[in-house]
């Protein structure tokens, strides 16, 4: 059988396809100029040669069976993804990643009347496409890597930003204690407190969002009364909204609504939505908190609507994205990082719920709807969660190990005002030595310390006879359950999250059991 030159010339005009014909013994009858160009061999030189001799790789890769099947009448499609290539030829695109031209091929019987007289192979060069796919995949991997670095950076940034907040907050408490009769000083103190509170919220949101992005948030699921949570958040926010002359109306179920959830995170969801509503509602406006149980959907539905600035469809489409801002004017009068709603979405989804936003348009208000699945939740037993009455601790001496000198000094002033004697140490080894020398009742220890970290300090103190029974309190910027577990495993009795709520610390110092030695001694009497 012969394939005419004219036929091949006509096929050549079809474009970038390789065309190869064989006879029924798989001897090459001819191939087109495309194949001459890419294989580097003229058709006249290979005509009459066995295809499997010219391309021995075909048999090695078991691709010769497709030719045998074609001689039986079957047509086959060989995708690049499965086979990479049919005929081994140099790549058509300069790339270090590929040894061969990437091909998609079709192998069919070649008929003369109804008799099969050979095979016809069509080869498409898809190297450029594959190189583009490889580049896109590498680019996607790089972007993913960059995104991961960004998330890690944000987490680190938030953590670092927390540290200076602690001494500032302590400083405010010191000012409270020492008091001032000067109005300007008092107003300045109040301004600092407002700004620190605002800053703390931003940093906490940033930290939470970065944790959600990295899948690091673990909910503390327990039965909780959603009605009580909503009632409490509404109670907290009513005066804040009232300060801006925004009215809050509340319609929530009377009596408990038990759901399985993380009470702290549920509070955060509702707080953020109320905060957002208040932020974008002008004086004289109204915010409404409405909640009900939808028995058909088996969901608690919480709606927070406002009469505020509303959203354009463009804003609405991106409202739950991190760093998305409804207002992007240069003055940025509403401030914020655009994290609150991203956090709401992330936390609602972690609860197996959803959040939706709706707005008829700019200046027509907004409505946010949170749906949380109601799983069978049983009200906790009244006794559950209550702690045995603590013994009163007669703590007098405290060792504070903290490398941030401002934080250490302000905390020392505060503790002294509460009547404690306080010694400071600014590194891990210094802290361990001071504990032996100073013989404190309680050690309050930072985790990130030079020389020896807080975990190491706790372990060292627990080893020494002289210090092993001290009451140890960890203070750390990392507050995930895993961080708390690590602190307790290292030997700490209590873990407090930075910036430490001073009232909480004061209460802990007052009500914690007396140091371990005394506790053991008392227990043995």
């Amino acid at each position, binding site marked *: 059988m012969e394939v005419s030159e004219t036929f091949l010339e006509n096929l050549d005009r079809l474009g970038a396809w390789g065309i190869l014909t064989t006879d029924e013994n798989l001897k090459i009858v001819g191939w087109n100029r495309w194949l001459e160009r890419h294989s580097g061999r003229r058709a006249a030189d290979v005509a009459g040669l066995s295809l499997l001799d010219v391309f021995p790789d075909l048999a090695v890769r078991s691709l010769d069976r497709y030719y045998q099947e074609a001689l039986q009448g079957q047509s086959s499609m060989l995708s690049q*993804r499965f086979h990479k290539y049919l005929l081994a030829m140099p790549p058509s695109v300069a790339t270090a990643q590929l040894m061969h031209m990437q091909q998609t091929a079709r192998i069919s019987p070649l008929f003369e009347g109804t008799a099969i007289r050979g095979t016809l192979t069509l080869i498409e060069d898809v190297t450029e496409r594959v190189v583009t796919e490889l580049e896109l995949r590498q680019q996607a991997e790089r972007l993913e890597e960059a995104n991961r670095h960004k998330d890690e950076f944000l987490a680190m940034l938030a953590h670092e930003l927390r540290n200076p907040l602690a001494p500032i907050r302590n400083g405010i408490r010191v000012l409270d204690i020492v008091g001032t009769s000067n109005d300007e000083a008092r107003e300045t103190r109040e301004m600092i407190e407002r700004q620190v509170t605002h800053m703390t919220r931003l940093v906490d949101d940033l930290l939470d969002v970065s944790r959600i992005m990295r899948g690091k948030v673990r909910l503390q699921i327990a039965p909780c009364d959603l009605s009580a949570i909503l009632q409490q958040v509404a109670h907290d926010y009513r005066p804040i909204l009232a300060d801006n002359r925004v009215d809050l109306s509340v319609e929530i179920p009377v009596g408990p609504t038990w759901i399985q959830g993380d009470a702290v995170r549920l509070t955060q969801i509702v707080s953020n939505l109320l905060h957002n509503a208040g932020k974008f509602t002008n004086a004289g406006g109204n915010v409404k908190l409405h909640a009900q149980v939808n028995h058909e959907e088996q969901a608690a539905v919480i709606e927070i609507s406002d009469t505020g600035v509303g959203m354009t469809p463009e804003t609405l489409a991106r409202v739950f994205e991190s760093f998305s801002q409804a207002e992007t004017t240069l003055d940025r009068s509403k401030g914020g990082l655009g994290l609150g709603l991203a956090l709401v979405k992330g936390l609602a989804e972690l609860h197996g719920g959803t959040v939706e936003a709706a707005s008829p348009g700019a200046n027509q208000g907004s409505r946010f709807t949170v749906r949380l699945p109601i799983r069978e939740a049983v009200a906790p037993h009244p006794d559950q969660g209550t702690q045995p009455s603590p013994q009163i601790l007669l703590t007098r001496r405290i060792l504070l190990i903290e490398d941030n000198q401002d934080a250490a000094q302000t905390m020392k002033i505060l503790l002294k005002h509460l009547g404690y004697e306080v010694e400071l140490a600014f590194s891990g080894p210094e802290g361990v030595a001071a504990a032996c020398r100073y013989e404190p009742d309680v050690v309050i220890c930072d985790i990130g310390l030079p020389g020896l970290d807080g975990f190491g300090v706790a372990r060292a103190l627990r080893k020494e006879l002289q210090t092993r029974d001290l009451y140890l309190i960890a203070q750390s910027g990392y507050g995930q359950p895993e961080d708390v577990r690590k602190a307790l495993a290292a030997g700490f009795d209590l873990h407090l999250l930075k910036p430490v709520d001073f009232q909480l610390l004061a209460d802990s110092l007052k009500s914690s059991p007396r140091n371990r030695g005394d506790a053991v001694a008392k227990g043995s009497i």
Partner: protein
Amino acid sequence: MQLTPLQQDAVTELINIAFSRAAASLSELTKCRVDLEVPEVSVHEIDQVSGAISHFVSGDVATVHQVFTGPVAGDAFLLLNFDGAVHLVDLLTDTASTKGTLGAAAREVITEVGNILMNACLGVFGNLLHVRFSFSVPKLSLDDLGFMVQSLVVADDALQHAMVVGARFKMRGSEVTGCLVLVLGISSFELFLKAVEAWADQSLAGDQG
């Protein structure tokens, strides 16, 4: 139109043989175990095939089409839900598609999968009928199921039958179900059924002997 129990068993058995071959080819290609199951086989007149097909796929479908000619001639189709096709490519190539799309490379993979499955079935039927089929090169199209079925029905005025075969691909702990449709003219279909019965009789005689 309904197959007799003997015909039904025999056709199912033959399809199982073909699917086993196809599964072996796919396993070899992917270097991962692929199983192919036949949940259901049924025969319908072409204008009543819609219900049977919609039992397996719906909405937007990816269809691989191959024409076969010879003493028995017709059209073979593999139909997969669009999402099923995307998922199948992900399973076969062990990758995650970009935003659930079916790009050029993925379309080629589906075309090759359809080609393998249909070649295996028609190869088994060819051996059974002692005939040699000639196959066209497979083509992939993406259409709404209704449109695709409509094109089947209006393609030819002559009475045709369609054999609808469920096809369940199982691999990497996941599965994708689609269906294979063989459309045959009345004479080809009768020839096919006679050959199936003869094969079944022969098999039964062999078992009893």
